[in-house]
C-alpha cells in the first residue's frame, strides 16, 4: 500500500486521536504549570462613622476582585511552575513522614493515599484474576459440550455489566444488614459493619473487580485451551506425567502468551480503578488516583474546579503508566524488529 492511500485510510482516525487524545495531553501538561485565578486589586477607602461634632474617619485598604465593564470577575492565567505539584505531593511533609517511617501519616496526604490503594489494588487483583480465570477455564473444559454455552453466558454477565452498577449491586448485598452481611454475621457470630472501616471496603472492592474481570481471563484461556496440542498431551501421559506435571509443562507454556496478554490488559485497566470508589461510595476511606483527578475536576463548594491541580495529578498518573508499559512495549518492539529482519 502506498503511503498516500495509507494516509487516506488512516487519516480520519489519526485526526480524532490527535485532536482528542494527544491534544488534551499537551493541554494537561501546560495547565499543570499554570493557574487561572481571579485578579484582586487593593482599594483604599475612607470609612466614616458619624460621631459627636466631627465624623470619625479611618482609611482602610481592602482587597477585592477586579471587575470588567460587564461586572464580571477578571481572571488571569499565570505561570506558577511546580506549585500545583507541590500542593499535591507536599514533599516536605512527605519526606518527614518517610524519615519517621510512619506510613499512616503519609497517607494523610491524599495523593499518597490514592497511590497506595491503586498499586495494592492492581497487584492483588492480578494473580486472583489469572488464577480464577484459569481454574474456570480448566473446569469448563472438562464439562460436557451442551453445558458450556450456558456457563459462558452466565460468566459473561459480570464482564459486560456497567462497572458502577456492578459495584452498587455488591454494595446493596452488604450495606447495613444486607443479605450477605447477615450471612457473615450468622457464620462468625458477631456484629459486622462492612462500610465502617477502610479495609473491609477495600476487600469488597477487590472482590468486585475480580468478579468483574475473571470472566475475561476465563474466555481467553478457554479459547487457548482449545488449541493445546493433543498429541503432546497424550505422549506426556505415555511418559507417565501426572496431571499436575501436564498442567505445568504442557498447558501453561502453551497459554503463556495469553497469560501475558491478560496481565497487560488487566494492569492497564486496574491502574485506572475509579468506578469502585463511586459505586461503593468509599471516598471517605479509600480513594484511587483516577478518582483524585475526578474530584479535582468536579465543582467544589465555592463553585470552582481545581483544573491546575487535576492536571498535575494527571501528569503524575501518566508517569505511572509509562513505567507500567515500558516492559511490554519494549518486547513488542524487539519482536517487530525480528520480524522485519527475519
Amino acid at each position, binding site marked *: *500500500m502506498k503511503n498516500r492511500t*495509507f494516509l487516506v*485510510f*488512516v487519516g*480520519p*482516525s489519526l485526526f*480524532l*486521536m490527535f485532536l*482528542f*487524545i*494527544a491534544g*488534551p*495531553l*499537551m*493541554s*494537561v501538561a501546560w495547565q499543570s504549570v499554570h493557574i487561572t485565578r481571579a485578579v484582586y486589586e487593593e482599594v483604599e477607602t475612607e470609612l466614616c462613622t458619624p460621631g459627636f461634632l466631627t465624623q470619625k474617619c479611618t482609611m482602610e485598604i481592602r482587597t477585592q476582585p477586579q471587575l470588567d465593564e460587564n461586572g464580571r470577575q477578571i481572571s488571569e492565567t499565570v505561570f506558577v511552575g511546580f506549585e500545583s505539584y507541590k500542593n499535591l505531593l507536599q514533599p516536605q511533609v512527605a519526606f518527614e513522614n518517610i524519615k519517621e517511617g510512619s506510613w499512616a501519616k503519609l497517607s494523610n496526604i491524599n495523593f499518597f493515599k490514592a497511590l497506595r490503594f491503586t498499586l495494592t489494588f492492581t497487584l492483588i487483583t492480578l494473580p486472583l484474576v489469572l488464577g480464577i480465570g484459569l*481454574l474456570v477455564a*480448566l*473446569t469448563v473444559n*472438562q464439562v460436557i459440550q451442551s453445558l458450556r454455552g450456558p456457563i*459462558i*453466558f*452466565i*460468566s*459473561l454477565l*459480570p464482564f*459486560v*455489566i*456497567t462497572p*458502577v*452498577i456492578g459495584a*452498587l*449491586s455488591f454494595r*446493596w*448485598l452488604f450495606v447495613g*444488614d444486607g*443479605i450477605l452481611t*447477615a450471612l457473615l454475621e450468622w457464620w462468625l457470630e458477631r456484629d459486622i459493619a462492612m462500610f465502617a472501616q477502610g479495609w473491609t471496603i477495600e476487600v469488597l472492592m477487590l472482590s468486585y473487580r475480580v468478579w468483574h474481570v475473571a470472566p475475561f481471563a476465563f*474466555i481467553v484461556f478457554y479459547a*487457548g485451551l482449545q488449541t493445546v496440542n493433543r498429541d503432546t498431551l497424550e505422549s506426556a501421559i505415555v511418559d507417565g506425567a501426572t*496431571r499436575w506435571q501436564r498442567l505445568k509443562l504442557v498447558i501453561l507454556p502453551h497459554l503463556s502468551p495469553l497469560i501475558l*496478554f491478560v496481565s497487560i490488559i488487566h494492569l492497564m485497566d486496574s*491502574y*485506572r480503578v*475509579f*468506578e469502585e470508589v*463511586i459505586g461503593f461510595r468509599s471516598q471517605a476511606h479509600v480513594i484511587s*488516583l483516577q478518582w483524585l*483527578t*475526578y474530584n479535582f*475536576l*468536579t465543582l467544589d463548594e465555592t463553585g470552582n*474546579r481545581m*483544573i491546575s491541580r487535576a*492536571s498535575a495529578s*494527571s501528569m503524575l498518573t*501518566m508517569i505511572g503508566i509509562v513505567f507500567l*508499559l515500558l516492559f511490554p*512495549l519494549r518486547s513488542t518492539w524487539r519482536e*517487530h524488529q525480528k520480524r522485519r529482519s527475519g
Partner: protein
Amino acid sequence: MSESSFLPKSLQLSKSLKLLSNGFLSIWCLIAVFPLLWITLMSLKYPLDAFSANPLVVIFGPGTLSAGASINFFDLLLVILWVVVAFLGIKRWQAEKNLGSKNWLYLGISIGWLFAAVALTELSATLREQLGADFFLSTPLLGMTTEHFQSVWIEQEFYQQFFNSLFVTTGVVSISLTVGTLAGYGLARSGSNWAFWILMTALVFRALPHSVLVSGYLPWFINSAEWLRPIFGEATLTLYGQPWAIIVVLASINQPFTIWMLRSFFQNIPRELDEAARIDGCSHGEAFVRVIVPVMWPGVLTAGLFSFLLAYNDYLVAALLLDAQNQTMVPAISGYFNRETTSTDQVEAVAAAVSITAPLFVLVMVFQKQLVSGLTQGAVKG
C-alpha cells in the same frame, strides 16, 4: 452423548476430581449470577421485604404480598412462557448461518414480542376478573410489584436519560466504526514502520485513564464560546453539556481499541481477495468497497458491540462533561443514591440499576458468540 466419552481413559478425570471440578464450577456460576439476580428480586419488592436480612423474605415477599401486590400462578406461567419463547427465538437466530438475510424479519418479530408482553398482562388481568379470586390459578403466589419501575420511568422521567443514552451510544458506535474500519483496514494492509508506530501509540493511549483526558478537555469545553466565536460567529454554543460533544470525545477515546480489534480482524481476511480486485484494475478504495465491505460485517458487528459497551457503561466522561439536564443513564443513577433518604428511594435506585442492566442482559443473550470472538481475537492474533 458427552464429549468426554471420546477422550482416552487416561485424560478423563477421576471421580473425586470430577466432583471437585464440578463443585467449583457450580460455585463460580452462582457467584457470577447472584448479585444481578438478587438486585432484580429486590427491585420487585416493597422496601421492608427488599432489605430484609432473611433471604426467604426477599424471595417470597410476604410484606409485599400482604400489601396487595402479588403475582398468581397464571401470571407466573405466562411470564415463563414468554421468556421460553423469546429464548428459543434467540437460539434460532444464533443458529442462522447467513447473518443479515432475514434481519428485518427478526427485528419485526422481536418488536411484536414486546407488544405481546403488554397483551399478555392485559389477558392475565381480564382472566383474573372473569374467574374471580377464588379460582385456584388466581390465588396470589409471590409478593411482587412493578411500582418502583413505574415510579422511576414515568414519574421521575428516567426515559429522558434513556433517550440521552440511546443518542450518545448510537453516535459513538457509528462514528467509531466508520472511522475505525477505514483505519483498521489500512493498518492491516500496510507493513510500514508508520503502521507499527501508530499501533504502539494507540496502545499507550488505550492505557490512559479517562480522567487525564477529561482534565485536558474541561477548560476548553467550558470556555469554548470564547475561542470558537472567531470561527463560528455569535451563534457558537458552549461545548460543555452538549451530548454530541460527548459523542465525539467517547468515539475518539475508543479509537485505539477499535483500530486494534478491527486490524486483527482484517488480517484474517486473505490478502489475495483484494489483490485479485487490484489486478482487475480497481484502486485500493474500490477494492475496499467492492471486495472487503461485503465480507467485513461480522468483524464490524463485534467491534460495534465493544464500542457500545464503552459508551453505555461510561460514567466519568458523561458525569464531568454533561450537566444534569442532559445526563445519560449511568451518571444519573448517582442522583438516586445521593437522595437515598427513605427506603422507597433506595428500592427505586435498585430499580433504576436493574433497568440499566436489562439491555446488557439481552445483549449478551443475543450476541454471545460475537462477544466471545471479540475477546479472544486480540489475544490469539496478538
